[in-house]
């Protein structure tokens, strides 16, 4: 179990995160918040790249900074801007990082092969990564993070720069990797985690807003989300969420404290509704 214990992180005078307390057990956790909310800051503290200004982070009761090498040994990390060596092949690259992760040479070759096949890159295992697509690079990144079969897998915006098809593949891959470990992934795109996260964590004003199952988070707006094709006729104060086209009509989804009068349908709130509502003031 990974515990974030009243953690505050300041950059000079600027407070990026304030008094965050979280508990991670096995399963997929989605860190969902707009850019600049502090997702990367939290993740860098979870990977010991940054130290908390206040509070501590414990793994099974031990401070992760004190655990040092032993902690790094059980984490897998995919950074937001995942760097790689253009002149390396995925195989060389995984061998390199595997060595730094302290994996014995005898085990490493087999491990590399198995992971490359898991992320469907076996046929380009020996090709230089120079010409790889964003999706292929991200898959190399995942394979790299999985090399030491981590108990904690941490992915910072893993879907950034992927096309819709690659996103779907990626989601399925994450789901398949989430057995028996803690997976923490950050994103500012709701659909990335809506279906795969057991729990969704949101920040607001640099503080923790929620850490709950998506269905519980959706309850927040229960009875307050509606749909209409004639949004201009609504007079009560409301917030427009999303729009969709159907039969030459534009249906607008909106939220309002009370159901407005007229031909209006109440709908079941989804995570995106809540996300848009919570961050309505942010651009």
């Amino acid at each position: 179990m990974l515990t974030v214990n009243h953690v505050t992180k300041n950059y000079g005078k600027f407070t990026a995160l304030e008094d965050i307390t979280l508990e991670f057990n096995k399963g997929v956790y989605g860190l969902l918040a707009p850019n600049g909310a502090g997702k990367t800051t939290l993740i860098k503290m979870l990977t010991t790249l940054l130290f908390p200004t206040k509070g501590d982070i414990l793994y099974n009761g031990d401070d992760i900074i004190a655990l040092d090498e032993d902690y790094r040994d059980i984490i897998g990390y995919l950074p937001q801007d995942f760097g790689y060596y253009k002149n390396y092949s995925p195989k060389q690259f995984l061998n390199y990082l595997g060595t730094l992760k302290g994996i014995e040479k005898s085990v490493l070759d087999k491990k590399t092969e198995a992971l490359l096949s898991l992320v469907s890159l076996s046929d380009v295992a020996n090709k230089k990564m120079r010409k790889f697509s964003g999706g292929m690079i991200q898959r190399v990144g995942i394979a790299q993070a999985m090399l030491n079969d981590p108990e904690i897998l941490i992915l910072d915006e893993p879907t950034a720069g992927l096309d819709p098809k690659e996103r779907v593949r990626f989601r399925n891959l994450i789901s398949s990797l989430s057995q028996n470990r803690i997976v923490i992934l950050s994103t500012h795109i709701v659909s990335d985690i809506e279906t795969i996260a057991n729990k969704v964590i949101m920040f607001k004003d640099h503080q923790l807003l929620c850490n709950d199952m998506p269905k519980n988070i959706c309850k927040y707006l229960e009875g307050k989300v509606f749909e209409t094709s004639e949004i201009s006729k609504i007079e009560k104060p409301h917030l427009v969420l999303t729009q969709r086209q159907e039969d030459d009509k534009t249906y607008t989804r909106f939220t309002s404290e009370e159901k407005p009068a007229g031909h209006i349908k109440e709908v079941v709130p989804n995570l995106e509704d809540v996300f848009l509502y919570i961050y309505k003031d942010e651009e």
Partner: protein
Amino acid sequence: MNKIPIPTKEEKEKAINKIISNGMTPQENFIQRIVNLYMHIGTKYIFGDILDCLIIAITSTVLIYFFSLSFRIMNTELSTTFAISPIFYIILTLATEWKEKMSHLYELKMTCKYTVKQITAIRLLCFSALGVLFSSLMSMGYSLIFTNESLLDIFIVSLLGLLINSLLALGVMLYGNRRNSHNILIGLWFAVFLLPPVIWGKGWNVFLGELPYLLITVLILIMAAIYLLGIKKLITEREVILYANR
């Protein structure tokens, strides 16, 4: 009155041995650890990435060495040796640091079991050894040309220069502001190695020549020990705030 018995010679020896063996164990473990790390990671990954840095360092050192030969006329061979002995080490560490930090993999590598810091520590130790090798070669070359100074004089002064500089470099790495550590290091080199001969001229050369061997040897040993301790600290120091995402 109680009298404290005077320990016998045997007892004294036993106590001293105990102190020495207790004091020495961590050092041995540390060296053992470095060796094991080297064996695991292997030459390919420790030096393969920085072959270009090595080539740059060797070429520029050789160039500077030949250039420095022209100072012969000024009769300042010891201060020249002293000043250029650390050049190889400086260029190599700066180029390597720069290359690692430019690499997009820096953060990822910092989260692996064995981090860049540990590899840097191994590299620094190897660089120092290479630096000593270079200094010896240069000293031999000098002593052939400058017949008025003994090989021992030249060698010992170059070793002193190298160690002072290695310590400065390590100090900057450990305690300096990492944003301008490069400038600080080069500035220190100017201040410590180039300024004295400029200010005191031949006096500096004479001063270096008159330092007693015993003093220099003791200094070199003490600094070597501090250097090893510094390397050990480098391995355990971690946070990399500079690379927080921007």
